[in-house]
């Protein structure tokens, strides 16, 4: 009896101590990861979930009234768009009325959008864009024309910046990947703007883009021997967004050059040697050795730039504040304007959620595209 008990204790002893050890390890693991997890939970995941919740309310930063659930009202306000056809004004015989310059006259849009009982669906909408279709005028109305401008500008910004920046970055990477003495100095210089704050860069480029004696105007007029007429780059709606795009590419291109470079360096040198022996010229090597080796890097870079570009904010805040004529409005700028400057937390959150959904959609596309490539 005594023997059996000792045996049992002996055989179970290593088991419990192993279990104990495992428990201890789990405890240590939790303890070590806990601070980072708690911080990420409080300041990243909770506000993220909060954004969805707040966007369904009328929350303000400081308000005497209790917060109420308002459903999708904030989103409807942002996204409500309608097409509307304006028919020309007609005289008694049914002919269109022409104004002094011979243009067709139309009834005023506000007759339909301001408390017109016959058109309740148009109440409060504003003109976003209009086109001439035959004798009629087709008007795109939006409940929040400024937000739509911001959405459109941001998408233009992304669509232009992504290929432009990726392309230039690849070009720079190929340039500094040459076997030349001192080539690292150039790599260092091209990368330099990346470490400079966008705030500083934006301030500097205001001098470059200045309408009178800006550096860019002076340069262009010198190159064209005075034929170039100065442009107020940031002051005119036609050039403002383009100017911000050019500057953003200048600031960010070094970042992606470095990523291209690390992609280039994964291509084994023997492939180039083999191509040389087979008699390939420089272009053929680029086309058939370098480019296929860079496919994954290319997808990665395009996605990274796209995600970064959607958060366009600092440039707009420092250089144009959305103007002139809303030509540089951007999604994040609008979110901050409403959520912070107008203290409309709910409205700002709704914009943030929309931005996140766009970014999520793109990263789903990314995983889809990369899977296909493999």
């Amino acid at each position, binding site marked *: 009896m005594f023997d059996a008990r000792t045996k049992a204790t002996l055989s179970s002893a290593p088991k419990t101590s192993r279990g104990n050890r495992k428990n201890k390890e789990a405890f240590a693991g939790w303890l070590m990861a806990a601070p980072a997890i708690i911080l990420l939970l409080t300041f990243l995941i909770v506000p993220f979930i909060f954004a969805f919740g707040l966007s369904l309310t009328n929350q303000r930063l400081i308000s005497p009234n209790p917060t109420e659930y308002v459903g999708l009202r904030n989103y409807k306000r942002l996204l409500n768009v309608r097409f509307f056809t304006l028919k020309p004004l007609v005289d008694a015989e049914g002919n269109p009325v022409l104004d002094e310059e011979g243009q067709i006259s139309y009834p005023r849009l506000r007759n339909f959008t301001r408390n017109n009982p016959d058109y309740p669906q148009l109440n409060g909408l504003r003109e976003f864009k209009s086109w001439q279709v035959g004798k009629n005028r087709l008007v795109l109305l939006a409940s929040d024309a400024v937000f739509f401008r911001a959405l459109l500008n941001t998408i233009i910004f992304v669509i232009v910046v992504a290929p432009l920046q990726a392309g230039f970055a690849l070009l720079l990477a190929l340039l500094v990947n040459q076997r030349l003495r001192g080539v690292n100095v150039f790599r260092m*210089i091209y990368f330099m703007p990346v*470490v400079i704050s966008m705030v500083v860069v934006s301030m500097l480029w205001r001098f470059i883009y200045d309408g009178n004696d800006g550096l860019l105007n002076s340069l262009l007029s010198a190159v064209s021997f005075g034929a170039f007429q100065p442009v107020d780059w940031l002051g005119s709606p036609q050039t403002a967004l383009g100017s911000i795009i050019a500057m953003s590419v200048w600031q960010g291109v070094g970042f992606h050059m470095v990523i291209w470079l690390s992609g280039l360096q994964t291509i084994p040198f023997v492939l180039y040697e083999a191509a040389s022996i087979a008699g390939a010229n420089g272009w053929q090597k680029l086309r058939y050795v370098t480019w296929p080796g860079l496919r994954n890097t290319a997808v990665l870079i395009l996605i990274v730039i796209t995600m970064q570009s959607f958060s366009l904010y600092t440039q707009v805040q420092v250089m144009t504040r959305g103007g002139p004529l809303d030509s540089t409005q951007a999604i994040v700028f609008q979110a901050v304007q409403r959520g912070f400057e107008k203290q409309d937390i709910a409205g700002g959150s709704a914009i943030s959620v929309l931005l996140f959904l766009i970014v999520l959609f793109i990263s789903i596309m990314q995983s889809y595209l990369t899977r296909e490539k493999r």
Partner: protein
Amino acid sequence: MQAKNVRGRNYRLGIYARYATLILIGLIFIFPIVFMIVSSFKPDLQLLRDTSSLRAFLPVGDISVDNYIEAFERAPIGRFIFNSVFITAVSVGLGLFLNSLAGFSFAVLEWPGKTIVLAVIIATLIIPFETIAIPLLLIVNFLPWFGLEGFTQGWLDSYQVQIIPFIADALSVFLFTQFFRDLPKEIIEAARIDGASWWQIYQRVLVPISGPVFATAAILKFLAMYNQFLWPLMVAQSEEFRPVMVGLQYFFQLNVAWGEIMAYLTIITVPVLIFYLALQRAFIESIASSGVKG
């Protein structure tokens, strides 16, 4: 013999052309920075006049440090710099510690739920900070704080509001986890057999051999924190807590003095540039490794 000579000359021309391209492009990147530094030494009138010629990039004319003196008189620049350095240093320091500890736990230790938690953390990498800034503003506005003045509510206008939300970051945790996971298991097992605790293994075995990943995480966080703009703009209303980027607003009140602005931009940028030039290999490598995260 002659053919060889021609090829040699072409080769030389090719080399020159390559250098010319490299230099020309280099000028595009370097000129705005030269313009900033040079202009900071010029009086306003000359500064604006010089932008119409190459003089914009040359330290000619009436050169002085007046702009710097006036900039320091106009704004509490010392205060701004202290704030930025303090906020950046504390978040980098605490961030390195807590994120590497978490990375160690994810990479080396076994505990239930680990895989899911790590997957969630990595998934948060696609959330742009801009999308949580507004709700975060609301949250910090309600959080309690126990400080020197006792118990207070709301973190707006403080150091902690600019530090604590940014200590832990998913990218750092991910980088540390990756790095620790790739280390040879034998090192850890040997230390276990010697009777070392997990804390001792982290502190005495892993940290000393993990210099590269600590450098990468430190540089990425340093750049992100020092250059932060949106968040301090929202939460640091009083000048007492303003970092350098938000302090720039000071120079647009009343009369705008461009020379002083240039001096200020130079003051807040040149230290970072020197830091970069001194450690450029490390800077470039950390960016490269952050990009490869996808």
